[in-house]
């Protein structure tokens, strides 16, 4: 027999209300779903194209975030340097910045006339806006804080004495990072990566502002949903949302079983 824990009412009631609050809009979506036309909607090539683009860009954005975010998190967690508090505050900026403003900011920095973008354009004839790479950049910009914050948390929670032990065994700081620290905080990195991926997948404002909206190139699922709704096709928008939802929930559930459970 397992001992039953009595849940205090002051916790149970808000918890239940919170759940309802989260689930209710989902029920709203399901209620408006035109189930009969669902199969033919699914078969539309635009849907597959947007979905494929979304999966590709959010995965690439997550990889980008891992490459830059994990070292950044490590710096914040392990190295004392002047202005560390400021850097930490700066990293959270994309969290509070409205994504559309984030998109404008990206244009001003990386756009064809932007600070760095103009240099890229002049020297390499390359500009990010309106390209799939631009979508990846916009998504990474918005999702990076999620990764950095959770990985930094994991690093701070990890016992630094393991790194000391590695040092006494002849490991340089780099080796100790790759061979000891990374495996130790792997669950934290995985959790951060999933969060990052989910945020990138749902990204809309920065993407449409920075990368524009063109089917097959920059039109990800959220943009397709918006455009469908804009054209007055609410049912179509609902269907697209459901597809996005179903795919992401499936992937997250699969990852959760594989990565996010601690033994």
């Amino acid at each position, binding site marked *: 027999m397992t001992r039953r824990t009595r849940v205090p009412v002051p916790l149970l009631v808000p918890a239940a209300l919170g759940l309802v609050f989260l689930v209710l809009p989902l029920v709203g979506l399901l209620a408006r779903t035109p189930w009969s036309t669902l199969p033919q909607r699914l078969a539309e090539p635009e849907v597959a194209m947007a979905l494929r683009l979304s999966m590709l860009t959010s995965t690439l954005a997550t990889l980008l975030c891992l490459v830059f975010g994990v070292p950044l998190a490590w710096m914040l967690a392990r190295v004392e340097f002047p202005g560390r508090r400021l850097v930490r505050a700066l990293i959270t900026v994309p969290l509070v910045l409205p994504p559309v403003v984030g998109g404008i900011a990206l244009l001003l920095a990386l756009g*064809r006339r932007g600070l760095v973008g103009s240099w890229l354009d002049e020297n390499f004839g390359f500009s990010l806006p309106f390209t799939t790479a631009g979508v990846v950049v916009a998504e990474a910009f918005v999702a990076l804080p999620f990764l950095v914050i959770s990985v930094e948390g994991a690093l701070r929670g990890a016992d630094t004495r393991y790194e000391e032990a590695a040092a006494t065994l002849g490991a340089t700081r780099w080796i100790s990072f790759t061979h000891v620290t990374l495996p130790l905080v792997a669950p934290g990195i995985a959790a951060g990566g999933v969060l990052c991926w989910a945020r990138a997948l749902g990204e809309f404002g920065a993407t449409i502002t920075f990368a524009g909206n063109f089917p097959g190139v920059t039109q990800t699922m959220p943009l397709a949903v918006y455009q469908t709704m*804009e054209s007055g096709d609410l049912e179509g928008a609902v269907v697209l949302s459901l597809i996005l939802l179903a795919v992401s929930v499936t992937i997250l559930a699969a990852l959760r079983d594989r990565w996010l459970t601690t033994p």
Partner: protein
Amino acid sequence: MRLRAAALAALVLLSGCGSTSDDEATPAESGGVTGTVTVFAAASLTESFTTIGEQFEQKNPGTTVTFSFAGSSALATQINEGAPADVFASAAPKNMDAVTSAVTPTTFAKNQLVIAVAKGNPKGITGLAGLTGADLKVALCAEAVPCGAAAETATEAAGVTITPVTLEQDVKAALSKVKLGEVDASLVYRTDAKAAAADVDAVEFPESEKAINDYPIAVLKEAKNPVGAQAFVAYIGTDEAKAVLTEAGFQAP
């Protein structure tokens, strides 16, 4: 004196007279216009309606006009989903028709497309045919939005095919891509190009005659403030409001 005359005109209109101007009207204290009038208006009306709204508020003390500017199709969807609007001003009849609760829409302005280019027209664009080059980046409105539909009609009339790099959700977004220099050209309304004259130049092209947008306005059935809504729609028909619209680059209907 003009101010008062315009206020009176509004009141007269409100009473159902239908006359757009009546200098002989006697001063009246109030026609019962109070509270907040919520106007959902196409993005291309942003500047002119903001000015007109301020005038309307001055003429009707105690009245506040709040605007929601966006792509006409988005506004239509919002209204159909129960957004609390009193008045809807669309950039195309199609979007007005989509709104089931619009009461007898009337056309109050016309708008036509121009090619918005960077200041000084560095790429030397002279017409629609100049937008087909592969090295040229063009932003168009999405087809669902009136400016997108108009662009489609115009390009068809010109017999050219433009491959845009992006399909923007409203005319302002398309214009801002030109302002920022991210694209070389965009098809926008003359009014929008005029409002942004500091940053962009407008290139007129003949085919735009084939794609002139009618701007309808209507009071909505569910209006919370029907009196205020009627008054605002009536005020759009006054000379003073027309002057603002003309100044912005709209044509009379």
